[in-house]
Structure formats: structure tokens, C-alpha cells
């Protein structure tokens, strides 16, 4: 019990650390908050002017669930770069040489990421509302959609912890960040997957980004809910998101804790 209490207290200290870092870095806050708004303009008005929605409907209504998924996935790269920086600069070694709970490090990182993600999501929601996006199916379904994002985000942040510990070098981690772009793009987030070549469509259909996008489109009542002969994750998107979250946690939590105890 005492160990658990200390693990929680240490986790809270490390969450506080992330916020202290941000407080000293206002530029990073502005960039993080500006990013969602820029995405709405870029995709909603630049690309959106030339993309048709399958089954009809407003592209920006179609787009917003995809952008929510994109913001959700930014947790992998964010946590990965922060963890890799700690690992390569010796901060992780100092943590590990201290009488603190080793599990506090990933719990602090992932907890902080969750709290950092909420204001980003809020800005995205406001930008979406300004662009004409609306949830149509009432408060319960809307809350469920956001809850799904939070759940998957948390699972993804553990993937980020493990990835950061695995690369152990902040320069490598920084170099890997742009690779997250194709991961979010090869999905149904911005365009329907129906027109993609078969092999790419397979990847896109099984991409967790697609599952989250499809699930939230369904729960918000936004256009583009796929119909017809579908891959399993797109036919059951809510279950797929929950299964993805469980699977990612089941794999990355033990891997991350093992990497920390070595």
C-alpha cells in the first residue's frame, strides 16, 4: 500500500514537472494550441475544397473526426520524444538511481500527456465548431466519442513511452516524428479508403486511426459512415477502438516497465 501511494505521489510530481516545463516554454504552448486550428483551416478549406464526401454531406463535418483522431495520435510522438530525451540525457538514469517507484516515470509521462492532450482537443473542438462541424446525436453519444479518444490516447502514450525508451536517443526520436504523418494519412481520416489500391486499403482499414475516425463519425452523426462490405474494424468501430486500446496497453505497458527495470 505504501509503495502504491509513493508510486502515485511520484507520478503526480512528474506530471507537475511536465507542466513546469511548459510554463517555462510559452512558445511550445502556443504551437501546440495553434496546431489544431491550422489543421482545420488546411484540411477543411484547402483540401476540402476539392474532396467529395461519399454519400454526400459537408466535408468539414466529415473531416473533424479525422482531425480528432490525428490529435489523439500525436500523443505517441510527443511522449516518445520526451521519454527519449530523458533517456539520452541521463535524467532517466538519475530517476532509476533514486529510491522512487520506477513505474512512476511512465505513469507521470502518460498522465501528463493526458492532461496536455485535453486543451489541444478543446481547441480542436472550438475550431471545428467555428468551421461548421456539429455533433448531432445528443450529449451521451458525444461524450462517448470523446471518451473513446481519451482511452485510445492513453494507450498510445504508453506506446510512446516504450518507443522513447527503445530509441534512447532524442535526435533519433525527433527524426522519427515526421513518420507519424503517413500513419495518420493512410486511413479514412481525410479521404474514403474505397479508392485506394487493395494493399493500401487493407492497411488503411486496419489502421487504429481509421477505427477511431469511424467510431466517432458514427457517435457524432457525421457523414461518411461507411456502409456495405467492410473490414471488421470499420463494421464494428467502437469495439475495434476498445480492442486496439486494450491490445496496445497489454503489449506496451509490460515492455516499457521491463525496459525501465533493466
Amino acid at each position, binding site marked *: 500500500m505504501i509503495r502504491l501511494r509513493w508510486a502515485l505521489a511520484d507520478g503526480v510530481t512528474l506530471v507537475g514537472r511536465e507542466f*513546469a*516545463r511548459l510554463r517555462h516554454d510559452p512558445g511550445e504552448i502556443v504551437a501546440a494550441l495553434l496546431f489544431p486550428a491550422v489543421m482545420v483551416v488546411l484540411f477543411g478549406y484547402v483540401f476540402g475544397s476539392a474532396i467529395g464526401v461519399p454519400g454526400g454531406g459537408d466535408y468539414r463535418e466529415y473531416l473533424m473526426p479525422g482531425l480528432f483522431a490525428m490529435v489523439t495520435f500525436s500523443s505517441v510522438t510527443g511522449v516518445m520524444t520526451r521519454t527519449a530525451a530523458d533517456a539520452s*540525457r*541521463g535524467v532517466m538514469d538519475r530517476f532509476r538511481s*533514486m*529510491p522512487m517507484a520506477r513505474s512512476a516515470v511512465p505513469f507521470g509521462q502518460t498522465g501528463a500527456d493526458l492532461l496536455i492532450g485535453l486543451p489541444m482537443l478543446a481547441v480542436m473542438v472550438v475550431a471545428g465548431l467555428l468551421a461548421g462541424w456539429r455533433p448531432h446525436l445528443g450529449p451521451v453519444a458525444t461524450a462517448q466519442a470523446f471518451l473513446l479518444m481519451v482511452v485510445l490516447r492513453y494507450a498510445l502514450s504508453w506506446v510512446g513511452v516504450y518507443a522513447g525508451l527503445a530509441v534512447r536517443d532524442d535526435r533519433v526520436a525527433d527524426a522519427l516524428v515526421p513518420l507519424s504523418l503517413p500513419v495518420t494519412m493512410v486511413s479514412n481520416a481525410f479521404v474514403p479508403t474505397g479508392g485506394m489500391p487493395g494493399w493500401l486499403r487493407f492497411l488503411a482499414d486496419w489502421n487504429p486511426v481509421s477505427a477511431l475516425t469511424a467510431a466517432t463519425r458514427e457517435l457524432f452523426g457525421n457523414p461518411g459512415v461507411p456502409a456495405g462490405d467492410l473490414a471488421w474494424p470499420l463494421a464494428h468501430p467502437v469495439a475495434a477502438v476498445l480492442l486496439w486500446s486494450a491490445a496496445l496497453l497489454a503489449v506496451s505497458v509490460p515492455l516499457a516497465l521491463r525496459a525501465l527495470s533493466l
Partner: protein
Amino acid sequence: MESIVVAEGLHKSFGDVRALRGLDLNVRRGTVCGVLGPNGAGKTTAVRVLATLAAPDAGHASVAGHDVVREAAEVRARIGLAGQYAAVDEKLTGRGNLRMFGRLSHLPRREAHRRADELLDRFGLADAADRRVAGYSGGMRRRLDLIASLVRRPEVLFLDEPTTGLDPRSRGEIWQAVRELVADGTTVLLTTQYLDEADRLADDVAVVDHGRVIATGTPDELKATVGDRLDVVVEDPADLPRAAAVLTGLAGAEPAVSGGDRVSVALPGGLRLAGVVRELDRAGVAAADVRLRRPTLDEVFLRLTGRTEPVA
């Protein structure tokens, strides 16, 4: 005197690289032990094992009476670790770092804050305390790194190359800090590739090469194993061969010639300077300078490791 750090037969490999091959070490409580060795000798790996960051493949080690593998938590509660890389958060202030490490060391909040202020004052970082570490000089960072390992008043402090890459003044500041800590009763295990650092700070020196300790002793004891050196500078370079012959006769070994006017040889014990001068005189050598000197740790080190180039 009581041993506070004990390592016996430590082995550790990383793939094909055998970093430690049966390392034994003994550090007496309240002393500074200098672990000396070239790059890649296994110094850092030894510290990582002792500080519970890496488990040995074979052998065992204890710190303050606790096994570093089975009782890692007890060990961690009693040690401090500062390294050659300043392991502090660059995006926080100096004070923010110390408060965070204090909280993570499970000091109560008020105590963590008080301790941070006290350490910043004592080690001359009070003025920079509220600036971000990213703007600190190399020496300031290293000092902050050092005091971050002191928040919990460790019994044993591991310093892994604490002054590598620092300018002379910053090195002096770190040395001063280490001396003060030892005066307070902290035991320090210090790895270094600077021999003068070991000479000035260490009570005992362990020379490490290829993953094991090849010699131990006080700096003086180690120097005595090499013996005093005799340097003769001749006035006329033409006298050099004759001077060399005299020294060969006295020392029973071939002397080293350097600089065109200097011969130098390791002397067996008991030889007096007056006798040397007399012998040179008899051979008709005009000596500009004759002196006996203690060997430097560099010479001890080079002889022990069989290397021809100085390490630092």
C-alpha cells in the same frame, strides 16, 4: 577500516563486449576512492552496477551493507549518482530541478524546498537558481548535477567522470565541493581519466583496465611501485652518450633520452643524489641539472596498463 562499497568478481557483457571481467573493489567508509582507467576500461559500467542501474552477469556487490541486486531499493535510498552527462532537466530552473528531485526522494514538500535553497546557496548557484538550466554554463550544469545527487544526503556518492570536459576553474570548484562532502562524512567513489584528479582527491586509487582492477593503493604506494626517477640534463649534447652510460651503470637499465639534452631513468631504491653527481663528474659529463623526482601517476598508469600514450 570498515568497507562501505564491496564488489567481488563482477562480470558484465554487452553482446560481444566484455565490459567487466571479474572486477573487485573495496571502498573504505569516509574516504574518496578514485577509479582510474582509460576510456572503455569498464569504469562507467562498474558505477552503473554499483548504483543499481545494471545487473551484473556474475559476481556480487554491496553498498552500505545492502546487495545491489536483491536489495536495490535500500541501496538507492543511500546513494547519490552524478555523471559525466549533466542529468538534470534543461527545461526547468535549477531550483525547479532540485525541488523535483527532492520530492522524488520522498522528502516532504517543505523540506524539499528548504534543502534546494540550502544546496543552491552552499554551492554558489543561488543567483542562477531561477534561470532555466538550458542557459547555464557547462560548469554550472555539472555543479547542479552534483548537488542534485545530494538532496537526500547520500552515504555513498558515485561520481562518474565529474569533471570531464570542464575548464580548470570549474574543475577546481567540483574538487572543492567533493572535499567538503568528504569532510562531512560522505564516502565518494569517483571515476576519472585525469590522473591529477585522482592524485589530488583520492585516498585510494584502483587502476582499472580491460574490466578488472590491476592495481590498488594510495597514490604514494602506487608511485613507489615504479620507483623514483632520475633526470639528468647535460650542458653539451655531445656528453649525452657518456651520461647515458653512467646512468645505465647506476640503475641497471637503459635510460630514456629526450629533448636532445636529457636522459631519464627509473632508479632502484637507496641511491643518493650526491653519488650520482660524483659518478657523472668522474665520467667527465658537465651536468646542467640533476634531479630525483617522484614519478607522476601518469607514469605509474602507463606502466601498469602497458600503454605508451598518456590517457588524458
